[in-house]
């Protein structure tokens, strides 16, 4: 089996009294496409937010590329309120910020698209190049980094061509149709040169045809950029077709994990989804 690129251990995220994620462990191996599914409110996005450093978990640890990037344990007021498991197992507080985690090679998209709305498509992608720029504010202002800037623009253009957005490169991001906005968000994430791509419901709000296109698109960029993909998705067709493995969350708790076949026939999963319409 190939190397583990992302590992979450005993993640618990408690907001006040609400345990949004409860003792969730998982791992993603290099080159895999892994899906995280579960009914609405199951804690999937929260799990993403923990992995990307948006929230510090209440308890647990996250490793990326074998390096511990996040670790926490119940502290302060939480000590008394803590309702999760594995208390005392973690004793370190390590909190990388989202930008540091992105620099390590984890890029993400958001469930509710978060583009730089009033900037152009081109600038949306070009901005992702800033973090790898070696120029300081002085050299950038006085254009002493012209070479690097040119290279970044060239790469941005190439990337837009690959994702099929070159013809709209000068449009304002918010003026794009919804489906293209989703593609742009993925393109922008790719521009950070990630090893691991996290997608939060990339097909949300798409019709079956658009969903098919997106499925092909994800497969294609995964191969082309040598990525590992970890995605939250509701469209079961997409999930079953694309994933190597699947994790299932229900009310914050992991209830199953396995191959698409195993998950499709898992009793607890079927129960959890019972009464939840397919297209949600």
């Amino acid at each position, binding site marked *: 089996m190939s190397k583990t690129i992302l590992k979450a251990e005993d993640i618990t995220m408690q907001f006040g009294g609400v345990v949004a994620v409860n003792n969730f462990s998982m791992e993603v191996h290099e080159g895999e496409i892994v899906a995280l599914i579960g009914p609405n409110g199951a804690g999937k996005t929260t799990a993403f937010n923990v992995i990307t450093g948006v929230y510090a978990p209440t308890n647990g640890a996250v490793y990326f590329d074998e390096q511990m990037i996040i670790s926490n344990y119940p502290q302060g007021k939480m000590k008394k309120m803590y309702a999760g498991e594995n208390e005392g197992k973690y004793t370190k507080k390590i909190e990388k910020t989202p930008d*540091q985690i992105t620099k390590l090679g984890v890029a993400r998209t*958001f469930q509710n698209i*978060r583009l*730089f*709305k009033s*900037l152009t498509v081109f600038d949306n992608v070009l901005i992702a190049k800033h*973090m790898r720029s070696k120029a300081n504010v002085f050299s*950038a202002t006085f*254009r002493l980094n012209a070479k690097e*800037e040119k290279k970044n623009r060239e790469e941005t253009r190439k990337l837009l061509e690959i994702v099929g957005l070159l013809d709209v490169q000068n449009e304002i991001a918010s003026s794009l149709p919804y489906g293209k906005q989703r593609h742009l968000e993925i393109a922008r994430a790719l521009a950070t040169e990630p090893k691991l791509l996290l997608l939060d419901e990339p097909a949300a709000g798409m019709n079956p045809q658009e969903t098919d296109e997106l499925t092909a698109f994800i497969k294609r960029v995964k191969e082309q950029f040598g990525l590992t993909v970890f995605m939250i998705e509701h469209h079961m067709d997409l999930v079953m077709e694309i994933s190597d493995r699947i994790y299932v969350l229900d009310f914050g708790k992991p209830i199953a994990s396995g191959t698409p076949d195993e998950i499709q026939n898992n009793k607890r999963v079927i129960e959890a989804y019972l009464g939840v319409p397919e297209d949600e």
Partner: protein
Amino acid sequence: MNMKKTTKTICTLIAAAAFIVLLVFLESNKNKYGMAVTVLQKGFILAVVAVSMNLLNGFTGLFSLGQAGFMALGAYTYAIFTIPVESRASVYYISGMNPVLAGIELPMLVALVAAGLMAAAFAAVIGFPVLRLKSDYLAIATLGFSEIIRALIASPQMDTITNGSYGLKSIPAASIYVVVGLCIICIAIMALLINSSFGRAFKAIREDEIAAEAMGINLLKHKELAFVISSFFAGIGGGLLAMFMRSIDSSTFKIAMTYDILLIVVIGGMGSITGSVLSALLVTASKEWWLRFFDEPLTIAGVNIPLFRNGFRMVIFSILLMVVVLFYRRGIMGTSEFSWEGLTGLIKSIPSRVTSLFHKKEGAAR
């Protein structure tokens, strides 16, 4: 509408040449066109400060209200180091000048950079704790800071440095070329910054902090950077104001100054550099010059019109402001920048605009 690059370059060169001719003309007829000379210099100085505020409020999405405080720091730093040593005894005639400072006189440009650095240093110190908090706190903290600075400058304990409430005078004069030229350089540097990779990162933060962070942009570092640079140029703006006015006192830098700058930014368009410059010139010209006659007593057919007296122009000015804010909510330029295409487009559209205006009227009459 597309214009050839050479055409645009020629337009720009002609405009620049015309501007230089205007400056030379004004400089050599100073006495006749005193008002124009004043308005042009003050307008450009306020433009520097307005662009510096826009850098923060319009481009980075951080709401700061400390511009007057940073200007005060810059103005006093500049004045203290440039008043000629031989004039200092007469300036600091009450308590004398602090012996450490009394012997130091700096060349104009060095003093101006020092003015910027002084403001930047203060900004770095307040920014570090405050920028971690939600952005509303920045407005409150900088507003408070600005008033504290003013109070400190005017306090008797500072007499040997700032000359307390007596203000500073005998600041060496500079020609209109120097003042306007330096202003243009400052604005150009800020424009270069805004169009650089860092400027794009600032805009990303303005658009969506969470997404910006997910793109690898360190929020605190970039906010601090924007805040320090903005304050640096506000400090330089203060220094330029001291250079232009030749005498300053702490009451120049009241909250009203920040308010004026904010209005310039809003009228010009949050997120437009050329908007801020245009607006600074227009606002200064109307406030100090074009609306002046409202302050003169007016007599029509032997009847004294009662409203026309000292201060009335400010009423008119405020009304104009309200009109602008109500009808052009995004300011003159919105977030766009001036371009020759935009200008020719505007001129070409005038006939159709005028006719459509008449058509509307006809329609309404029916």
